[in-house]
C-alpha cells in the first residue's frame, strides 16, 4: 500500500513538473503542419490521405532539396477528427509559424475560418470545409480548390441527367441523398434543393446519425420504400462501406449509386465485394501508380523506408488525393516565392501565392502529373475555380475510369455561393471586409 502511494506521488509530481513550455521552433525551412486522423472512427479514410500528403512533400525534399532550395518541414498533428483536439493542434502549431493550415475535417475548419484572418495563416481546405468560402471577397484567407461540395452535387445531377437523356428528363424523378448527419453531410442540401426546383425532380433526404454509421438498415428500408432513381452518397469513414453493403443487400442498381469524392476509398467498396461492382464515385485525381510523380515518390521515399505507407497502398484513390493536396500546397509555395520574391515565405505570402495559383496542363506535365488531375486556377474573387471531376467506377477489385471529365453547373452554383457567403458575413456581426490587395495572376 505504501509503495502504491509513493508511486502515485512520483507520477503526479512528474506530470505536473513537465508542463508545457513550448519553444517555437526556429524554422530554417517552411513549416507545413498536417492535421491527421490515424485514430478514431474515420481513420480508414484519414490514414491514406495523410500518407499521400506527407510522402509528396518528403519526396520534394529528397529529390529537389525542398522548394526553391528551402526544405519543407512536415509535421503531423493527430486530431482523431475531434474538434477539441483540432483546436488544440491549431494552438500548438501556431507558434511555429506555419504557412498554411490543413485541418482535414469540416468540423475543425469551421471554427478556424474566423481565426485565419486574425492570425494571418491561410487555410487550404481542398474540396471540403465551407462551400461558401469559395467567395474570395468574403473569405480572403480560405481556399478550397478544385471543386466545392456544391460543384460535386451539380456534377452528379449533370451525370444523372446525361444518363437519362437530358437534364429536362429529370422532371418527376426521385433523387435521394444519403448523408452523414453532420455539417459535412448537410453541405450539398441547399444546392440540391435549388436544382430540384429548377429541374422538377423530387429530392429525398436520408440522414445517417454518426452514432448509427454501422447500423443503417432503417435508412435503406426507407430507400426501398421510396425507390429513388438516383442516390448521391455524401458519407465518410465507416459510413461508406456500410452504405454500399446495404445498397447491395436491397439490390439497388449500383450504377445509379454515386458517392462524392470522399466516398471513393478502396475500403469503402471492397467490403461489399462483387456486390459493389459498378459503384461510381466522383473523383478529381486519377488512381494508380502510372504517373511520374507517384513513381518518384516510390523511388525517393517509400523504397527508402522514409514513409509510413505500405507499398501496396501507394496509388490508391485517397492516397493520390493526398498527393494532389500536397501538389497544391507545393505549387502555392512556389507561386508565393515568385510573387513575394522571398524564399522563406510567411503566411501572408502563402495567401498571395494560393490566390495566384495556376496549375495548367503544361505545369502538370512539368511536375510529372500529366493527366493525374484536371488543370486548376484560382482567382482573387473565386478561391475555388469550380473545376471538373470525373466518375470513377469500381470494377470489383479496383477503381477504373468510369466517365470523362464532367463540368459543374457553374451558372447555378456561383450565385448560390455568393449569396451564402453574404449570409455568413451578415450572420457574424463585425465580419471584416476584404482589405488584402489582389495580385494579378502570374
Amino acid at each position, binding site marked *: 500500500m505504501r509503495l*502504491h*502511494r509513493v508511486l*502515485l506521488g512520483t*507520477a503526479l509530481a512528474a*506530470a505536473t513538473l*513537465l*508542463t*508545457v*513550455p*513550448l519553444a517555437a521552433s526556429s524554422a530554417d525551412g517552411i513549416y507545413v503542419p498536417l492535421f*491527421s486522423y*490515424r*485514430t478514431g472512427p474515420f481513420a480508414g479514410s484519414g490514414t491514406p490521405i495523410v500518407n499521400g500528403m506527407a510522402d509528396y512533400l518528403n519526396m520534394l525534399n529528397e529529390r529537389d532539396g525542398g522548394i526553391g532550395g528551402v526544405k519543407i518541414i512536415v509535421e*503531423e*498533428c*493527430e486530431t*482523431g477528427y475531434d*474538434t*477539441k483536439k483540432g*483546436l*488544440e493542434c491549431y*494552438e*500548438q502549431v*501556431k*507558434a511555429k509559424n506555419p504557412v498554411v493550415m490543413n485541418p482535414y475535417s*469540416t*468540423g475543425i475548419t*469551421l*471554427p478556424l475560418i*474566423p*481565426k485565419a*484572418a*486574425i492570425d494571418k495563416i491561410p487555410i487550404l481546405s481542398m474540396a471540403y470545409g*465551407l*462551400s*461558401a468560402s469559395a467567395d474570395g471577397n468574403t473569405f480572403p484567407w480560405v481556399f478550397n480548390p478544385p471543386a466545392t461540395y456544391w460543384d460535386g452535387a451539380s456534377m452528379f445531377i449533370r451525370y444523372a441527367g446525361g444518363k437519362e437523356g437530358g437534364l429536362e428528363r429529370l422532371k418527376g424523378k426521385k433523387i435521394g441523398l444519403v448523408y452523414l*448527419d*453532420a*455539417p459535412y453531410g*448537410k*453541405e450539398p*442540401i*441547399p444546392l440540391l434543393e435549388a436544382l430540384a426546383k429548377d429541374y422538377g425532380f423530387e429530392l429525398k433526404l436520408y*440522414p445517417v*446519425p*454518426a*452514432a448509427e454509421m454501422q447500423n443503417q438498415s432503417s435508412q435503406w428500408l426507407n430507400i426501398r420504400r421510396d425507390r429513388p432513381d438516383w442516390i448521391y452518397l455524401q458519407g465518410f469513414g465507416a459510413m461508406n462501406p456500410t452504405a454500399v453493403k446495404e445498397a447491395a443487400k436491397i439490390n439497388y442498381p449500383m450504377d445509379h449509386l454515386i458517392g462524392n469524392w470522399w466516398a471513393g476509398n478502396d475500403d469503402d467498396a471492397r467490403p461489399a465485394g462483387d456486390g459493389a461492382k459498378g459503384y461510381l464515385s466522383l473523383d478529381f485525381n486519377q488512381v494508380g501508380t502510372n504517373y511520374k510523380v507517384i513513381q518518384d515518390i516510390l523511388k525517393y521515399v517509400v523504397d527508402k523506408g522514409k514513409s*509510413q505507407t505500405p507499398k501496396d497502398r501507394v496509388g490508391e484513390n485517397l492516397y493520390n488525393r493526398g498527393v494532389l493536396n500536397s501538389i497544391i500546397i507545393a505549387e502555392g509555395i512556389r507561386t508565393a516565392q515568385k510573387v513575394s520574391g522571398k524564399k522563406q515565405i510567411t503566411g501572408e505570402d502563402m495567401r498571395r501565392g494560393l490566390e495566384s495559383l495556376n496549375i495548367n496542363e503544361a505545369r502538370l506535365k512539368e511536375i510529372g502529373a500529366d493527366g493525374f488531375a484536371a488543370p486548376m486556377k484560382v482567382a482573387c474573387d473565386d478561391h475555388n475555380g469550380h473545376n471538373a471531376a470525373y466518375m470513377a467506377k469500381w470494377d470489383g477489385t479496383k477503381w477504373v475510369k468510369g466517365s470523362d471529365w464532367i463540368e459543374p453547373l457553374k451558372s447555378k452554383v456561383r450565385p448560390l455561393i455568393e449569396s*451564402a457567403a453574404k*449570409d*455568413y458575413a451578415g*450572420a*457574424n*456581426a*463585425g465580419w471584416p471586409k476584404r482589405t488584402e490587395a489582389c495580385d494579378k495572376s502570374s
Partner: protein
Amino acid sequence: MLYREVGQYKTNYAADMSVMPLIQDRVGIGIILFIAAVIIPYFGNAFLIQAIMIPFLVFSLAAIGLNLLTGYTGLLSLGTGAFMGVGAYACYKLTTYFPGVNILIWIIASGLFSAVVGVVFGLPSLRIKGFYLAVATLAAQFFLSWCFIRQPWFYNYNASGAIEVPTRTLFGIPVTGATAADATRYYVVLGIVVAMTWLASNLVHGRIGRMWMAVRDMDLAAELIGIRLLRTKLLAFAVSSFYCGVAGALLVFQWYGSAEPAVFDVNLSFFILFMVIIGGLGSLTGSYLGAALIFILPIVLRYIPPHLGIPIRPATVDHIQYMVIGALIVLFLIVEPNGLARLWQIGKQKLRVWPFPY
C-alpha cells in the same frame, strides 16, 4: 507543523462556523487566485491560456455542476453533455434575438434555460434510482443531441448546421469572436468560474447542501425526517444543469468560437463524469483536480516525447496516451477510490503532523 490550528482562536460563532477556519487555507486560496489572475496572463504564452487554462476552467465548472448532482445528491447523470449544449444553444439564440444586450448577461441567463430542461428530465428521479436513473439521463442526452442536429430552429436554419459565435463587446473591448484577445476571454471565464465556485461552496456548506447529502446517504431516512424528496432532487437537477449550461455557453463562446452538434455528444458526458469520479465525488476541490488530471495530463503526455527528443509518430503517441490514461484511471481507483480530493485531504493531514509521521 505547517498546517496546525494552534494559536488561532475564534471569538464569535460566525468565525467558528466559517468555511475556511484556518488562516493557512485563506492564504493558500489567495495565492492560487493571485497566480490565476496575475501570473498566468502575464507570463503565460497563448498556448497556455487558450488551449490549457480556458478549457480547464470551463471543464472544472461543468465538473462542479455534475459533482453537485452526482457527488452531493447521489443521482448518477449521463446527460451533462446535452445540458451544456442547451446552455450553448440558448446563449446563441438569445444573442441572435437581442444582439444589443451584454453577452455576459446572456451567458448567465442561458444557464436558466438549461436548468429548466434539467428539471424536466429530472422528473423521473422520484420513481427511478441509482443506475437506472443514468439511463433516463442518457435518454435526455440522445434526445437533445438529436434536437440540435435535426431541428433547424436551433442553428438559425443555416446551411451547415453549425453555429458561429458573433463578435460581442464589453465596454468597447471585444469579448467573443475571433478578434477577442486571449487575455480578455481568460479573464471573463476566470471571473465567472470563481464567482460560481464561491456560490457552489456556500450552497454545499449550508442547509441545501446538507439536504442533498442526506438524500444521497439514504433517501428513505431523509424523507422520514422531513426532507421533501422531489423538491430536493429537482433542485439538485436545476442547479447542476445551471452550472453545466453556463459551462456550455462558455465553452462555445469563449473557447471554441463555433460549435457543431457533435461537440455535445455522449462522449462529453463521459468525459465530465470521469473528471468527477477521479477528482472525488462530493468535493469541489476534487472537481478542479479531476479536470486537471483528465484534461491536462493527456496534453502533457503528448508533448513529452518531442521534448525528450524521442521520435515517435503522433498517432502512436495518441495510442499510448489512451493506454496510459486508462491504466492511470484503474490505478487511481485501486489506490484511492475516493478520488484525488481524498488524497489532498490526506496530504493536508500529513502536513498537520509533519515532521512527525503520525
